[in-house]
């Protein structure tokens, strides 16, 4: 039954890859890549339990951290066209 779960997650990743490759807008692609990352995290855990080596969970923690930072960085870059912009709101003297 764990194998079936891994297979279903692989099918979900393949289908989400179609949306990531053919998304009409930029935000569809970012959404697909973000969701793909979540499914890859789950697949890493499931493969770890399938092969009896739960050490794969360390890699999945790393994937979770990188996935979130990458999503926010891509969105920030396409909003300001630069990474070097403060995300805090400007004060009165800044406007």
């Amino acid at each position, binding site marked *: 039954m764990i194998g079936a779960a891994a297979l279903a997650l692989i099918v979900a990743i393949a*289908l989400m890859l179609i949306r990531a490759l053919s998304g009409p807008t930029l*935000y569809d692609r970012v959404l697909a890549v973000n969701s793909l990352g979540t499914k890859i995290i789950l697949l890493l855990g499931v493969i770890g339990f399938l092969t009896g080596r739960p050490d794969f969970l360390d890699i999945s923690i790393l994937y*979770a951290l990188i996935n979130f930072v990458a999503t926010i960085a891509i969105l920030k870059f396409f909003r300001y066209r630069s990474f070097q912009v403060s995300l805090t709101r400007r004060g009165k003297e800044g406007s």
Partner: protein
Amino acid sequence: MIAEALEYWNAFRPVLGSALMLVGAVLAVIGTVGVLRFPDFYTRLHAASVTDTAAATLAILGMVLLAPSFAVVFKLAVVWLFLFLTGPTSSHALANAAHTAGLQPMIGRLGESDGGDE
């Protein structure tokens, strides 16, 4: 009596864990089908974000039931907490960025008119 109940629980635990993992994976497939078939970015975002959080919770709960030691349970709790905090945050950031960039949601029924699509 308590020992008997514990024995039953230990026999039942792997089955329950595998079933929860399978339910989570099937939920991920359902969310992906929604992302492929929905007509609009915002509806796709809804399908993806809701099912992702639920699928991660179910699958990680199943893995907790299969975990051999307490360290593995702790790592799973860390992964779950991070996914639970960052999934809705990135969904909000995506919707906010798309709305700020001027992407309009589709309004009205599909096939009736293309009024909200301009």
